[in-house]
């Protein structure tokens, strides 16, 4: 009787042990599966974030290039104004050399008018660049366009 009970106890213990191991294995594998699923989700989120970042980065690079191109065009235009003025003093419209001193000596009245008008334009250009509102007439004035366009 007692010997039989002993066998039962051993069998029960062995069964309980197997059940325990199976339970532990099940729990552990579930935990691992959950971990894999979490990692997978994290990876997917990471990939999506990277994709979004790449799109944003590309858009930024595009905008930066556009801005730089526009800036370079503005710089070229501003340098052009100086070169044109230098040319006015040294070269006629037909390409011949101009002696500004000689012209002033020969046609002092005309040159005086031109340089006074030019100086007034330069001073007005400073005012416009500082934020002054151009008048209707100034909006049409070709000589002041480079000062007005820069404000807009």
């Amino acid at each position: 009787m007692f010997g039989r009970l002993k066998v039962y106890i051993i069998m029960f213990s062995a069964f309980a042990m197997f059940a325990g191991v199976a339970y532990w294995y099940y729990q552990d594998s579930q935990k691992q599966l959950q971990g894999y699923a979490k990692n997978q989700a994290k990876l997917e989120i990471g990939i999506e974030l990277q994709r979004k970042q790449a799109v944003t980065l590309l858009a930024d690079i595009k905008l930066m290039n556009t801005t730089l191109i526009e800036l370079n065009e503005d710089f070229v235009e501003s340098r052009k104004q100086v070169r044109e003025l230098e040319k006015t003093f040294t070269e006629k419209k037909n390409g011949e050399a101009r002696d500004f001193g000689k012209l002033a000596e020969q046609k002092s009245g005309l040159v005086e008018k031109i340089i006074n008008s030019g100086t007034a334009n330069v001073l007005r250009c400073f005012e416009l660049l500082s934020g002054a509102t151009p008048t209707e007439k100034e909006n049409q004035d070709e000589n002041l366009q480079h000062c007005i366009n820069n404000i807009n």
Partner: protein
Amino acid sequence: MKTYNIVLIILTSFFLASCSTIQELKLLTVDEPRPTLVVPEVDQLDMDNITWVIVTPENVQEVFQDLKDKNIRLALFSLTSNGYQAISINNANIIKLIKQQESIIAAYEQYYEAEE
């Protein structure tokens, strides 16, 4: 028997302690945007007019007489044609610089405001 009870109590307390859990602490961070910098406008320039007078050997007497008539001091601050060219080109370079600076500011605005 007494020792057995003590061991049993200690083991039970260990088992019970293993049932306790610690709730994970969660930190929430919120990005607060940088306040916008509002800068004042520059002072608008109000330039005084300048009148150039070209003095040649032919009109020098006339120019001085005109000054006398207008009761203006007989001192002229003169420039040669080369000096005038230089001052004009210097002014053009200053305008160029202002325009370039304004273009740079506009470029920064365009780039960073588009980001927002």
